[in-house]
């Protein structure tokens, strides 16, 4: 069976195709291999070695140390574990707040800007997109000025009688601060006694620090524009007929958005959430140019910690290990999100009202069509 197939592939008019295919892709394969695959594999090796930063990591006196670097971080009981736990805590809160807010905001902006009746749409589109094309270093510097203790934000707050915090110097967690309003300053023993990664449960629940909150606002401000663009593109691709059909069925604007438009945006939503998730787990340049982890290590993130352990402390193995743990976290959340946003058949409970009434079964058919089109769109 395989033999004739083989000869037929080798000979004849299409014989050289495989070779030329490889030839044409070779430049890219070599480039990607050299600058992507090989460095990643080298970093993987470094995370399992005791390389100290001098000479090649493949040199003779670099030893394989197994999971030592990983266990120092995850189970070492020392400062390294505590720092890693703190960095994860900070970044987790950052992700939890940034991803939903920026997704919702960018969708809202896209829907607003996409409306036919809006005047000066071009102006709004440009101005919403503007922060995204500005370099993050410039925006960070701007932010440091705006949020300084005597800066514009605190001035504005003082007009409405609020005594603004000393933003980038305030290490207190916002949830802790909120609880303090009710006189809770010390966590229950159940939370303060137990700890995970060297950080007590009570501190895990501290919420982002005031300083981190300023960074969260900044991330929302800068990235919403980019994702708005993705949503606009998706909205312009939707056919008006489906919406018209829904109108004919008597769906009001709110229902049309939630039941017709949003389901059709599912592939874009997935893209936006995934990009947002990856970007916000890797936050680095704001921290590097802004606070370098201060105040009180509450803006330390795994990406910055990785840089710091490698370049400042010469703990290259630990730095690489942090990077790979971060990689695992990101992959896990991306898969989890894919699972949550997967295509599901309409549930029995939702189906029931339509089945009793033959007239609305037609409406069901109308709303079911976009679902199948998105499916084919998604398999790209």
């Amino acid at each position, binding site marked *: 069976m*395989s033999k004739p*197939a*083989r000869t037929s*592939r080798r000979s004849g008019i299409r014989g050289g195709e495989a070779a030329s295919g*490889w030839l044409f892709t070779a430049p890219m*394969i*070599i480039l990607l*291999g*050299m600058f992507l*695959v*090989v460095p990643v*594999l080298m970093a993987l090796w470094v995370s399992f070695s005791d390389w*100290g*930063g*001098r*000479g*090649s990591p*493949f*040199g*003779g*006196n670099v030893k394989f140390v197994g999971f030592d670097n990983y266990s120092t971080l995850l189970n070492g009981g*020392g*400062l390294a574990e*505590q*720092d890693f736990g703190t960095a994860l805590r900070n970044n987790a809160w950052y992700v939890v707040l940034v991803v939903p807010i920026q997704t919702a905001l960018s969708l809202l902006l896209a829907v607003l800007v996409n409306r036919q009746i809006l005047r000066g749409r071009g102006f709004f589109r440009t101005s919403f997109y503007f922060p995204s094309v500005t370099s993050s270093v410039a925006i960070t510097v701007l932010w440091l000025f705006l949020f300084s*203790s*005597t800066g514009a934000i605190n001035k504005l707050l003082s007009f409405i009688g609020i005594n603004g915090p*000393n933003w980038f*110097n305030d*290490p207190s967690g916002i949830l802790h601060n909120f609880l303090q309003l009710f006189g809770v300053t010390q966590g229950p023993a159940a939370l303060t006694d137990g700890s995970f990664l060297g950080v007590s449960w009570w501190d895990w629940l501290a919420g982002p620090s005031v300083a981190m909150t300023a960074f969260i606002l900044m991330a929302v401000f800068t990235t919403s524009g980019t994702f708005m663009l993705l949503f606009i593109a998706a909205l312009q691709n939707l056919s008006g007929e489906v919406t018209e059909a829904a109108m004919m069925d008597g769906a009001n604007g709110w229902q049309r958005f939630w039941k017709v438009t949003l389901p059709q945006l599912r592939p874009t939503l997935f893209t936006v959430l995934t990009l947002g998730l990856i970007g916000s787990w890797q936050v680095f340049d704001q921290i590097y140019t802004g606070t370098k*982890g*201060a*105040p*009180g*290590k509450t803006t330390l993130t795994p990406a910055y910690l990785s840089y710091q352990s*490698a*370049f*400042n*402390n*010469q*703990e290259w193995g630990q730095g690489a290990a942090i990077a790979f743990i971060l990689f695992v976290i990101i992959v896990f959340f991306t898969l989890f999100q894919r699972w949550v946003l997967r295509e599901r058949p309409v549930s029995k409970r939702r189906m029931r009202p339509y089945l009793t009434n033959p007239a609305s079964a037609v409406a069901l058919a109308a709303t079911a069509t976009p679902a199948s089109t998105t499916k084919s769109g998604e398999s790209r």
Partner: protein
Amino acid sequence: MQRRTSRWMIGAGLTMAGALALTGCSSSFGGTTSGSTGSAAALTSDASKSLTVLIGSSGDAETKAVNAAVASWSSSSGTKATVSVASDLNQQLAQGFAAKKPADVFYLSTDALAGYASNGSLLAYGDSLANKDDFYPSLVKSFTYDGQFYCAPKDFSTLGLVINTDAWAKAGLTDADIPTTWDQLETVAKKLTTPDQVGLAIGGEYARAGAFMAQAGGNLMNEDSSKATANSAEAVAGLTEVKKLLNDGVMKYAKDVGAGWGGEAFGKQLAAMTIEGNWITGAMSSDYPSVKYTVAELPAGPAGKGTMQFTNCWGIATDSPNQAAALKLVEQLTSKDSQLAFSTAFGPMPSIKSAASDWKAANPVLVPFLNGADYAVGTPTAKGSADVVTELNSKLESLKTGDPQQILDAAQKNLEALLK
């Protein structure tokens, strides 16, 4: 099926070949030259190689001064040398070491010493310096790792008490009131505290609060960083005094009065006194020329006078092809003439005793800073201690409500972990 496997084979083959080619390249700089650290008995001296000097400059004045000094050495010795200014010194050093093509001579901080010394990147040349005995002993200790004197201190700074003379006179104080004990410090700080000016403002970090520990006779680690002493009774007493000053309302952290550091709080007249190093003079003359000030030695605590010192050294790379010339260059750069020239250009204090009298004559106002050299203590140099200090700093932010003993116990635990 077979077709697919063969493709995979080709793909895998290509990746392997690529990886092998790369490791082949890397072995040319990875292989043999290792382990030649330590004794400077056999310095490399490939005279055909010119020297590169990597510095982290504070500004044009420093860059120009170093350039001039290196150029004059170059013309007298006949060895070419070029100075480059790093934008991120740590990162550029690390890249150089990893590629085995580091700068020959470079600035090195006390924090970074242990990391580079332990992985063999640094040449321990201290004992072969001709002017070795001229350096202040406490500075030599700061650059001693594992019993070896690694590199020549470039210059140094100490902390002093900087006083706003106008506020001082306004509070009815005279020269005789300059505090020499903790009690006197509390008294004058109280007198100087007004509704819009706090008596004393300092940066809320170990690098300032540590001076109080030193005055009480304690520090985070012993002199050569071989033993953690963070929770000793002396260190706790020092931190307790800081807490007392904070709670009395006569001292505040700079950030709590809306300033980035002590010098800013002092220059903006948010505080009548601050504890800063001699670098404050630059900021005062450029940013706050109208503020009149004087400098005094820090008051003594229960264990006598104490202050902190900060210093950098001239590192030489083990992988430098011309270590002998690099050593000669460093000797020149740490000579009396060069250091005094550097001092005039950008303000640091010379690291050698023989330059002290000339320096004092040239900077009469700043003499208290140099007097501090006799009793100054350094920051810990054990590998990883910079992290412990950062952690400690984050706790010191809430010292006002915290417990000094508890804070230092945690630091002690972290420091002990480094020594294992």
